[in-house]
């Protein structure tokens, strides 16, 4: 029943979701949703450059995402415009430049929709290796830097004063984000990567009593959303990215229903201290 391409898509999607979970939590905690979006949109520029210079797609997308995030950090430091406006400018410019470049290259024919919204047919066995390899790398990085990442998310100043080098941590986080965007692009598509980062994390919030558990739950919920979405995509012949996001949204809405709240133990511990 399951075609070979579909098994590959499921495996790839689950790999992406497991990787995206912890990173998505940080995107939510650090209020970087728009930042993530900007990095993701720049991926199309990476696609265009990859086609133009005939370089590896993954490398090109990763490189462009890193460059855009560094550019953002540098511009934010100058404080000439609000971060919000800067993100808006960079996000849409990167997307527009990517689209224009692709249009100029009349000799290549690419399926834009599959890049923007994901394509399960596009997953090759080699991609599968890259996704799981890259994902393992990202998860190892997150685990290694967990303490400084959490500390600088709570307070960069305290982290700096107490010797944890938050500037370095932030840079490291950008690299991880760029890597996740590069490996998630094929499955969910450029436009919807941030959704896969944020929605499972937001859903996990209600069940989690610590940042660590929230990261684990976000991974698991993301994986469930991917499996559900891909089956939907196969069944209704819908693009894979939007189907996954719809599945994630359904889980989120379900979690909002009363009775799904926090574990009872956490509720008891917080009794009497609600502000």
């Amino acid at each position, binding site marked *: 029943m399951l075609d070979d391409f579909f098994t590959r898509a499921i495996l790839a999607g689950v790999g992406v979701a497991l990787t995206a979970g912890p990173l998505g939590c940080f995107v939510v*905690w650090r209020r970087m949703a728009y930042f993530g979006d900007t990095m993701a949109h720049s991926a199309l520029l990476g696609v265009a450059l990859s086609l133009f210079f005939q370089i590896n797609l993954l490398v090109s997308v990763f490189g462009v995402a890193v460059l855009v995030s560094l550019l953002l950090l540098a511009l934010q430091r100058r404080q000439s415009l609000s971060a919000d406006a800067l993100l808006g400018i960079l996000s849409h410019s990167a997307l527009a430049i990517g689209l224009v470049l692709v249009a100029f290259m009349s000799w290549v024919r690419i399926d834009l929709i599959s890049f923007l919204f994901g394509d399960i047919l596009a997953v090759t066995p080699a991609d599968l290796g890259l996704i799981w390899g890259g994902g393992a790398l990202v998860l190892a990085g997150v685990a290694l830097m967990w303490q400084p990442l959490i500390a600088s*998310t709570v307070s960069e100043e*305290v*982290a700096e*004063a*107490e*010797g944890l080098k938050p500037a370095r941590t932030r840079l490291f986080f950008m690299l991880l984000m760029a890597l996740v965007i590069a490996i998630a692009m094929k499955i969910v598509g450029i436009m919807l990567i941030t959704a896969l980062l944020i929605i499972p994390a937001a859903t996990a919030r209600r069940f989690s009593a*610590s940042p660590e558990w929230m990261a684990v739950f976000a991974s698991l919920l993301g994986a469930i959303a991917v499996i559900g979405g891909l089956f939907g995509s196969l069944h209704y012949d819908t693009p894979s990215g939007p189907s996954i996001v719809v599945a994630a949204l359904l889980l989120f809405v379900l979690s909002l229903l009363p009775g799904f709240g926090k574990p009872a133990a*956490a509720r008891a511990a917080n009794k009497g*201290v609600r502000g």
Partner: protein
Amino acid sequence: MLLHQLRYAITCAMTADNRVFEKMLHAMKQTDQRADEQLVSLNNAGILRDGRWLVRGIDLSIRRDEVVTLIGPNGAGKSTTAQLAIGVLRADEGSVSRMQGLRIGYVPQKLSIDWTMPLSVRRLMRLTSPLKDQDLMAALDATGIPHLVDAEVRHLSGGEFQRALLARAIARKPDLLVLDEPVQGVDFAGEAALYELIRTIRQTTGCGILMISHDLHMVMAGTDTVICLNGHVCCRGTPETVSQSSDYMKLFGGSGRSLAVYSHNHDHTHLPDGRVKHSDGSITDHCHPDDGHHDEDHDHGHTGHEHHENAQEQSAEGARSHA
């Protein structure tokens, strides 16, 4: 005659128990060094932002077992100065030196945790370094919130959160404790208890403490040096000297407090726009010590002025001891 006897006595003592004497000397030197060890020192440090000096010409140092309190009105650069001292901000002018391997415990003035992060007090305590359960509870006991160890941080009240932050900072057993308005939002009885706790920590651990406060009266008893800031060091000294100095009165107003009201002239006035009007009528952007406006040839003749002079002298002394 007496001199001879004395010299003889000393010689005897030295030859008799030379080793003990040397040991004593050595020990004295060591304790001296330890006490003299500067944890942090700022030399003429300043921070420039958008063409404006947030603080400038700051000289200060903190040793072990010393409590330095920064006071000053809103926007005086108290937090900025503290952040300069601990390396969160880098000096655009002057220099800041910290002891190697200095362990800092920091309670920032503001800390906003996104409510989506599920963070218990227990987890907050281990934010920047691992901690034994026993030390963790001891610190929470000390700040009076052991019952909240498993509570979620976002459900704490302002005062409870402040106590948790203080507990976190002291549990690290730091060399230098930096407390930016540590008792904000704490009820009146708790405030006194927390200041008492800060005194105890200093006595038992011998750490240096840099504290920021709006109110000199509350911190008076436990402070060795008070530095009154307003973009620059206005005056410094023991709490007694500062509370009677003209600058302090100028900044905080003498009335409504239990201190005697002095009336006196002052060699500069801070205008609402942040500029400084000097006694000769000129206006400058800043009250920098080197701007030539602290000359002493203008008319004084007020009792309050002496304190001001004292403060100036002390600040000069402080500056020299850094060199």
